[in-house]
């Protein structure tokens, strides 16, 4: 799909996906690109799967992407990485949070949460960055910054200058949470580079 870069974010309602997509789009905008995003609102946010897309490039038409086109797939919940795996482009980076949210369909006995998910992730994603973002967020100061930790890892798969990422975070998060979010971002970036 032409020369646009696409990022696919997925997770569960309430995990802070929309903030992460806002920071990515701000970073792309600050880098001088045209940007489009798409988000899920409404009924789907009530504990269901939530996705957000960001696309940037010299000129972006569609806010939606084709399967097999995302340069980075960032999953805030590990089973959701597998559900969205076919959106990742060949050679793309998968950032997967080592974090499980059990759906009601599992607790009520009508479905099973997959076992050996790490193996499945390895099989699905040749370029996999799989780590516990919540733990890194706690180390940075608050578990609520797990989304920004994942964003840090995601940034490694994109070609935007680090300074624009930091500026985008400054622009997007509230000043009193800025320091912890900058730390969280750095931790995520380090995790993906190691």
């Amino acid at each position: 799909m032409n020369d646009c870069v696409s990022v696919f974010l997925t997770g569960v309602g309430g995990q802070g996906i929309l903030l992460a997509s806002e920071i990515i789009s701000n970073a792309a905008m600050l880098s001088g690109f045209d940007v489009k995003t798409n988000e899920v609102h409404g009924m789907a946010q009530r504990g269901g799967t939530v996705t957000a897309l960001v696309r940037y490039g010299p000129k972006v038409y569609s806010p939606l992407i084709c399967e097999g086109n995302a340069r980075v797939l960032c999953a805030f919940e590990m089973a959701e990485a597998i559900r969205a795996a076919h959106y990742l482009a060949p050679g793309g980076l998968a950032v997967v949070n080592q974090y499980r949210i059990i759906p009601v369909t599992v607790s009520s006995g009508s479905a099973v949460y997959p076992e050996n998910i790490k193996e499945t992730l390895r099989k699905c994603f040749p370029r996999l960055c799989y780590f516990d973002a919540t733990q890194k967020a706690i180390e940075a100061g608050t578990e609520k910054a797990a989304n920004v930790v994942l964003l840090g890892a995601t940034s490694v798969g994109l070609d935007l200058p680090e300074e624009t990422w930091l500026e985008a975070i400054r622009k997007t998060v509230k000043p009193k949470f800025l320091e912890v979010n900058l730390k969280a971002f750095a931790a995520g970036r380090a995790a993906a580079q190691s």
Partner: protein
Amino acid sequence: MKELLSGNEAIARGVYEAGVRVAVGYPGTPSTEILENVEQYKEHVYCEWSPNEKVAFEVAAGACLTGARSIVTMKHVGLNVAADPLMTLTYVGAVGGIVAIVADDPGMHSSQNEQDSRQYARFAKIPLLEPSDSEEARDFLVAGMDISEKFKTPVILRTTTRISHSRSLVELHERVEHTPQGFKKDPPRFVPIPAWARPMRVRVEERLRAMIPEVSASALNRIEWANKDLGIIACGVAYQYVKEVFPEASVLKLGWPYPYPDDLIRQFAAGVKRLLVVEELDDFLEEHIKALGIACDGKNFVPNIGELSPMALRRIRAKMEGKELPQVLPVEEASKLPPRPPVLCPSCPHRAVFSALGKFDVVVTGDIGCYSLGVAAPLNRMDTILCMGAGISMAHGMKIAGEKKRVVGIVGDSTFFHSGITALLDIGYNKSAPVIIILDNRVTAMTGHQDNPGSGLTLMGEPTHEASIEEFARACGIKRVFTVDPLKYDAFIELLKNSFETPEPTVIISRSPCIVHDHSGLKPALKVDPDVCRTCKLCLKIGCPALEFTEGHVRINNLLCGGCSLCGQICPFDAIS
């Protein structure tokens, strides 16, 4: 200065820039954020949540007749509610500009149907504007005001989910004031009694004809000439997909598709070898183009169900070229994943209502709101949904048809104010006896926690009268009116039991605030005592996301649990506290 705005934010910006004075609406995905964002301009623009879309439309119509520029916002099904004032305001016409913003939901992300509201423009014989991104959403709102005033007509600005909820860059402009001149008495113009409505009817047709040359010449419609082997006519978000998937084709982009720009369509069709119409949902353009005697492809390739996407267009392209498109399917393991549908939130008071109803063999007629989720497993406690307010009226209908089981109608507080009051009046008036449960969580929750006539706050943040559901119920003639907290679970079940045994109509107001909106009811997370728990799994039947069953044990996720204690009250062994 450019800003990254959603389509809805951009429309709100357009409302500000166009000098709009009055902005009203009723929340509904995907339209809700328009008025939420107009609120930031409240020094310049009066804005309100009306009780429903019909009232909202009439409020905007009244404002427009004083010369004030006004807008009204709604989701597609809201226009059905507002169709009555729409179909006659089209006769009366506009003084100040009036634009009805209608957000369709192809694919039904958050709706009960996927009607194509463009049909209303043709039905009402008024102009239709359809933006393709946020910049156009803002521009078209401003243009819509000019068109409305020039031709003295209401205008429909139609968006879809992907326009409303996608962000793109928008250049901001200053506000241009439009000062209303006040209402000027003119009964033949504003009073459609038959003698005056007949000349109005003629003026509607004259207006439509007068608009046609303007539509073809409008900058909102444009031809992008490229390779002339294939020409594509597209509007709305479909235009973006066309540019992505058919980059070499010539394109006629219609931002003002109705009244149909016949000259422009003929000119474009004459310039290309093959013509394709790409539009979401109905063949709104295609049918007319064919009626003009122009051969084209369209719904023979483009689905009329669900939303389009770049992938859908790639499939269409492959089909047109007689090729096989290799399918990119979800990975094999994805088929084994547990589904993750939306569910009632942890500590949602509605859960207690549905869990309690599960103890009775009754028919439950439901309604539109978060509580629609009561239909899902494991609660399984809703039997019908139709539209706003029908939870009450359909219960009455079943009752008078002689349904042998007790019938329970369910609506939320905002839905009751929207369309439930007249339905309850019908029950009182015509003496039937269903049990009506009004789930009063003090807020319009599903669409993102908007205030409503019961919440004591206006959209502009001013304290106001709290409408009393109890008083409404009594005024409708219902004598048995109870207000209870469903989280006092045993007492709630007892009340249901009594009500089912009584031959009189009963209104139960289940009053407990939405825990996501009002955190004051949050309590510390509960714990399961593993020594006491006998793994009977009764607690798992309430479908709470905070209750997890893993490695043979029931656990409570302390990040999710809000301490509502419903599971503890249900546990026969007192293992949860």
